């Protein structure tokens, strides 16, 4: 983990309440897709954890949904502004555990980390496929970016206004040998039950510090107590206790 100042290159709306922000700064601490950053915002005491969507040598892309005061403040931040960021938090997805044909499953704002993961899987010589779930057509983002990677991509909408009608679990038709998922808890649970292979699931929790100091985000697993921020947010399917 590193603490640094990152400059906002752009901060743009993708849907009614989902935003994409590009931050320029040191990315040396990012070691795996699925890690997150923790952002200090003016007027708020606790930092706000946001997953890393994509990164390169120059900066980080994050995608966030405006749900509370923190993300509302983030959406008001202007290009050129500097943010105090803890970078490279959490374990992330271990690409070496993933199969040759891993299905990456994202639901809503669980989609962003799956983009960086899909790229990392490709870089490792694997052939991922993607299933992206949204409530309705207006809420879809990043479908084009996934397709631009040249990977088989299926979009589901709960109301059937686009793609496959239903949930991500209704689109797990292609054969796959491993899965990685990020999304709301009911989705993760459905994926856990619908998949026959091993896999990795990324969890969310309210955090204090984000780097393992405060025990604010602990959960029980079959491998013992874990901190979502430090020992997670990615857990193995086999260790999860619902």
């Amino acid at each position, binding site marked *: 983990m590193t603490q640094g100042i990152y400059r906002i290159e752009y901060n743009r709306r993708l849907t009614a309440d989902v935003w994409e922000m590009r931050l320029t700064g040191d990315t040396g601490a990012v070691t795996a897709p699925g890690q997150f950053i923790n952002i*200090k915002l003016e007027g708020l005491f606790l930092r706000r954890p946001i997953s890393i969507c994509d990164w390169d040598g120059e900066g980080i892309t994050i995608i966030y949904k405006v749900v509370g005061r923190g993300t509302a403040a983030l959406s008001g931040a202007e290009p050129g502004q500097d943010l105090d960021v803890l970078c490279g938090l959490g374990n992330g997805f271990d690409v070496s555990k993933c199969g040759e044909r891993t299905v990456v499953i994202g639901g809503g704002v669980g989609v962003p980390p799956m983009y960086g993961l899909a790229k990392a899987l490709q870089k490792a010589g694997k052939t991922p496929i993607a299933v992206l779930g949204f409530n309705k057509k207006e809420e879809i983002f990043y479908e084009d970016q996934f397709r631009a990677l040249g990977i088989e991509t299926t979009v589901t909408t709960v109301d059937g206004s686009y793609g496959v009608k239903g949930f991500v679990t209704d689109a797990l038709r292609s054969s796959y040998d491993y899965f990685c998922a990020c999304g709301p808890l009911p989705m993760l649970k459905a994926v856990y039950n619908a998949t026959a292979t091993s896999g990795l699931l990324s969890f969310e929790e309210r955090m204090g510090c984000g780097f393992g100091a*405060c025990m604010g985000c602990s959960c029980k697993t079959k491998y013992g107590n874990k901190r979502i921020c430090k020992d997670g947010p990615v857990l193995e399917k086999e260790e999860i206790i619902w």
Partner: protein
Amino acid sequence: MVDTSVALSGIRLDNPVIPASGTFGYGAEFAELYDINCLGTFSFKGTTLSPRFGNPTPRIAETPGGMLNAVGLQNPGVEKVIAEELPRLREIFRKPVMANVSGFSIDEYVQTCALLDKEEQVGWLEVNISCPNVHGGGMAFGSSPEAAAEVTRAVKAATKKPVYMKLSPNVTDIAAVARACQDAGADGVSLINTLLAMRIDLKTKRPLLANGTGGLSGPAVFPVAVRMVYQVYEAVDIPIIGMGGVSSAEDVIEMMLAGAAAVEVGAANLVSPFVCRDIIRDLPEAMKKYGINSLTEIIGGAHHG
């Protein structure tokens, strides 16, 4: 050259800056970030006789100028702390450490303290009789002078190490509790633990924390802590470790002027992981700015004249 050193019960600290229990684990997470040997010492995660998972989540909430926590004393239990954490600590920290202890009965406090008494690296015992986030113990012992004195007496009989009783601000008269601890043999007192508080989620219309209530900490409580340290300094002759919302070198000086012999830094560690290193770096400059040559000399300075 200014002198930042202080002493707690005869043990010298290079500076008065002590990360507070529950915000610093057993040191390992911060040792990855900086050399923690720059610290005066640190108070390790509240340790109980048996392992504890703590409260359900959410355990954390934002507040104006601070935060709530209701972790509920999650810790691996004293035996595992001694077997696993302390050997690891010796690798990263070469100073005496402050062992923070909690319990649910006097017997538990005594057993835990007796086990830690044998550990060479433990310099002081900080006995938490003020955790607001557990039921049947914790704060109950710190809520009355009589109960606080009873724990103090029992723990003092079980250890040769200096005992600092960590006091709750959730009482009518904290000075009376501090005096009772002193009379029962405490070597010092630590204050303040967090203030009992609550937030309610407007969307669910339920308390935000799974535990309902939590403990308030952060800059919002700093003036409350300064006031209580000031009051306790008037009431006792034993050293006070002051804490509550301390975030800067100036805050450390203010807390010492109120009467603190050393100062703990809590919530600030969670949002600024390098804050204790930075406070220690900034202290000499802040001392010069206010014409202070020795920190020891300013303890309780606000009471004179």
